[in-house]
């Protein structure tokens, strides 16, 4: 392995959003509850990988993710929605950014969302903003 270019596998990602998100459904407003973001372990073998380029101090990574609103899904299920409609949203985050002095990353990038019956990719957008 070159000391300037390091390929890596993303072996875990677990994150959640606890802030209130208002979702409207059939004229009513619901608090989404938790938004959970997880690594999609069922992604193909070449997925969930990235590169550290130390000579350019740049990193890039492609995260295959699943996004879930478990509490909102439970609410909709109680209202009689087909569970198939409530499956997690699959997304691929294409991220890149600088490698900082403390070896954190300033990664940002867009998410490509897979087809989903409720969270239609033409209307649902997601991205990771610059930060660390």
């Amino acid at each position, binding site marked *: *392995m070159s*000391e300037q*270019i*390091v*390929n*890596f*596998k*993303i*072996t*875990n*990602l*677990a*994150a*959640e*959003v*606890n*802030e209130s*998100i*208002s*979702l*409207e*459904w059939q004229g009513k*407003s619901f608090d989404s509850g938790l*938004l959970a*973001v997880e*690594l999609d372990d069922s992604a193909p073998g*070449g997925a969930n*990988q*990235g*590169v*550290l380029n*130390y000579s350019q101090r740049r990193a890039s*990574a*492609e*995260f295959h993710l699943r996004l879930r609103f478990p509490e909102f899904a439970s609410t909709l299920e109680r209202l009689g929605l087909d569970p198939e409609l409530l499956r997690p949203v699959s997304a691929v985050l294409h991220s890149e950014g600088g490698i*900082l*002095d*403390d*070896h*954190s*990353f300033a990664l940002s990038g867009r*998410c490509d969302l897979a087809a989903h019956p*409720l*969270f*239609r990719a033409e*209307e*649902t*957008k*997601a*991205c*990771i*903003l610059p*930060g*660390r």
Partner: protein
Amino acid sequence: MPDVGFRSGAEIRQAVLEGKAVSWRFSPHQKRLRFTLPKMFGGRTYEVCLKGGYTFRPIVSGSAAW
């Protein structure tokens, strides 16, 4: 930000070069995720914080990853 257990960026880079897995945490107070809901759920756009982290494990052998 790097997870606990490392004191400096150089120490983390050394660990990476040795093929060790390293974890990072999202800064919990930075609005890192922006998403727009579909119209059927109101169509609003939110910017929210992520709490959690991720782990990279260097690929020691083989060709370029992607």
